[in-house]
């Protein structure tokens, strides 16, 4: 109980609270636009040899960094036959010399995990894709983009599937 008049515990507590608040706000600011999906998960582990081979074939030894791309999917998909997918990369340039050239969608626990690829061009103005997929069971989904300069960016969504949509 050694209180000094200069730093009463209450003031100290408020300061800490403020610092935590600022840190949280900054954290939020770094991850804009996340409405669905979880926020601070670590990168999902590669679940099996099949997915490992797909990633190796597509990207070789290039690092797959998290960021730049935003994958939005429902947290819970009631019907695995029709699950909406939104992929955007609002901050990646789409100009003739520097652009997103491909998007790959990998669904870890689907029978055919490498579900779709989209070759895109600067004529599209920005990267914004929406479509619907089938999902067999609860799994991680990976949206991975490649830029014309060879960078590889990814975002991940964990989707809980109630009804198997793959048979």
């Amino acid at each position, binding site marked *: 109980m050694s209180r000094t008049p200069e730093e009463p515990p209450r003031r100290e507590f408020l300061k800490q609270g403020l610092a935590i608040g600022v840190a949280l706000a900054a954290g939020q600011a770094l991850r804009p636009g996340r409405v669905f999906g979880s926020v601070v998960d670590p990168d999902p582990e590669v679940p099996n040899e099949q997915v490992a081979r797909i990633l190796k074939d597509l990207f070789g030894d290039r690092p797959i960094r998290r960021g730049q791309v935003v994958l939005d999917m429902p947290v819970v998909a009631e019907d695995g*036959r*029709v*699950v909406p997918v939104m992929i955007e990369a609002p901050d990646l340039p789409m100009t003739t010399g520097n652009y997103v050239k491909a998007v790959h969608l990998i*669904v870890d626990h*689907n*029978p*055919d995990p*490498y*579900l*779709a*690829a*989209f*070759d*895109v*061009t600067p*004529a*599209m*103005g*920005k990267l*914004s*894709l*929406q*479509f*619907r*997929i*089938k999902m067999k069971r609860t799994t991680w989904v990976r949206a991975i983009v490649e830029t014309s300069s060879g960078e590889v960016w990814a975002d991940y969504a964990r989707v809980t599937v109630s009804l198997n*949509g*793959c*048979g």
Partner: protein
Amino acid sequence: MMTIGEARIRVPSKIQKGDLISVSAIVQHPMDTGFFRSADGQPIPAYFIKDVTVTYAGQQVAHFMWTSGISRDPVVTFTLIADREGPLTIRWVDNKGAAFEQTAQIAFSTT
């Protein structure tokens, strides 16, 4: 009764030169995975769109490679810079080699 390959493309009704427009397209297709059986127990073979090409005023602007993991009656929405007038054509090809095509005209509104 569904007609396989029937397709529609939706673009904004008013487009000014240089607009970033949103394009939506749907094609009717069963997108069978090959994992299901019919009511009488017969396996339903895989039957799906595997290749989509988007051409705008003679230039290929996108190319999608799909599997049967895309939902039936595939829809896709993407953006495009409307910098010239001309046809926007989407061509869907399935794993049996059938091709389906639909075109929307990109024209600038005068108002």
